C-alpha cells in the first residue's frame, strides 16, 4: 500500500470532531489532498515534533487527537514517545506511516528497518502498540487501533515509492495555525 492510500484510509475513518496533526513533508501534503479539514494541523519543518505537538493538544482538549507521523520523524523525536507514554493521554492516537526510509531526501534507509516502533511505544507506556505489515489487514488494523484505549500507536508498513506525489499545502503557516485554533476555540 502506498503512504497516500494509507493516509486517505485513516482520514476516512475519523469523525468530524477529531483533531489531526500531520507530519511535515509528504504526510501533510497527502493529508491535505485526501481530505482537508478545519481541524487538521499541517506541520512544515520541526521534524521530530509530531508526538509533542499532539500531546500538547491532547492535554488541553477533550477530543480525539490523531497524529499522522513518519518513521524517520518519530525516530528523530524519540523522546516524544516517553512523554506520551508518561502522561498517558487517553485521547491520543498515533499512526506511523513507516516506509523504512527518508523518502523525501532520496530514500536513504532509516533505522525503523531494525527498531520496533510499536514495541518501543508500549515500552514507553502507550497502552496499545501494534505493527501492521500486510496490505489486506490495514483497514482492520486501523479499526482496532482507533477502538483501543489510548494512547495507542499503530506502526503501518507502507511502500517506499510514492507514484503520485502531492503538491504543497496552499495555505500560509499563519493561516494553518489560525484555522485550527479558531475551529477549537470558536474565536
Amino acid at each position, binding site marked *: 500500500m502506498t503512504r497516500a492510500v494509507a493516509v486517505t484510509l485513516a482520514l476516512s475513518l475519523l469523525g468530524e470532531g477529531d483533531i489531526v496533526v500531520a507530519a511535515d513533508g509528504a504526510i501533510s501534503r497527502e493529508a491535505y489532498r485526501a481530505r482537508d479539514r478545519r481541524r487538521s494541523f499541517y506541520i512544515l519543518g520541526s521534524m521530530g515534533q509530531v508526538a509533542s*505537538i499532539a*500531546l500538547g*493538544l491532547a*492535554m488541553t482538549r477533550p477530543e480525539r487527537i490523531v497524529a499522522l507521523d513518519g518513521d524517520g520523524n518519530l525516530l528523530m523525536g524519540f523522546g516524544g514517545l516517553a*512523554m506520551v507514554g508518561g502522561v498517558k493521554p487517553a485521547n491520543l492516537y498515533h499512526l506511523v506511516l513507516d516506509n523504512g526510509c527518508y523518502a523525501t531526501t532520496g530514500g536513504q534507509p532509516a533505522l525503523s528497518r531494525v527498531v520496533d516502533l510499536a514495541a518501543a511505544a508500549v515500552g514507553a507506556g502507550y497502552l496499545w502498540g501494534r505493527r501492521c505489515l500486510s496490505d489486506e489487514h490495514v483497514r482492520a488494523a486501523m479499526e482496532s487501533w482507533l477502538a483501543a484505549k489510548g494512547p495507542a500507536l499503530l506502526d503501518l508498513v507502507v511502500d517506499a515509492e510514492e507514484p503520485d506525489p502531492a503538491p504543497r499545502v496552499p495555505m500560509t503557516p499563519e493561516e494553518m495555525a489560525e484555522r*485550527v485554533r479558531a475551529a*477549537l476555540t470558536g474565536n
Partner: protein
Amino acid sequence: MSASRRLDALLEAGVGFVAGVPCSYLKKLFAGCAELPAGCFLPAVREDHAVAACAGAWLGGRRAMAAMQNSGLGYCLEVLTSLHLMYRIPLPMVVSDRGAPTDYEEHRILGQSTRRLLDLFGIPWREARPGAHEAESRWLIEASEHERTPAVLLVGKEADV
C-alpha cells in the same frame, strides 16, 4: 499560592499550561509546577519537545509557557524558528540565566551567547529582578502575544522567587 511567587504571578497573568525541563536556578518555579492540576504541567524530556507541546496547547486554546535552562535554547532553535516564529504562535518562556564567569564551564559558551542568540532571531527578552515578578509576568505575556512570538524572561538564581 504555590511554592513560587513567580509562578503565581504568571498564572495570574493568564498562563494555563507549562512544559519544561528543570534547572537548578528554577527550583522554586518547578516546585510550583509540580503542584499544578493534572493536564497543566508537562515534564518534558528535552526542551524542543517542551516548546512543541506548548504550540499544541496554544492551538488547543491555552496560554502555554515553556521553562528551561538556557542551554536548552540550542535544542529549541529549529522549533522556535520553523514553528513558533513561522506560524506566529505566542510562547512566553522562562529561561535560567546561566553562564557567568563564575559558573561551571559547561554553561559558559551558550550562557554568554544567550542574549546575542535571542537578538539574532528577533526574540524579545528581559532580565528578571527579585521583587519585580508581577510586572515581569505581565510583560512576558504581553510581549509574546502582541507580536505573536516567543519572548524570554531570563532568570538568575537570585530571581527564582
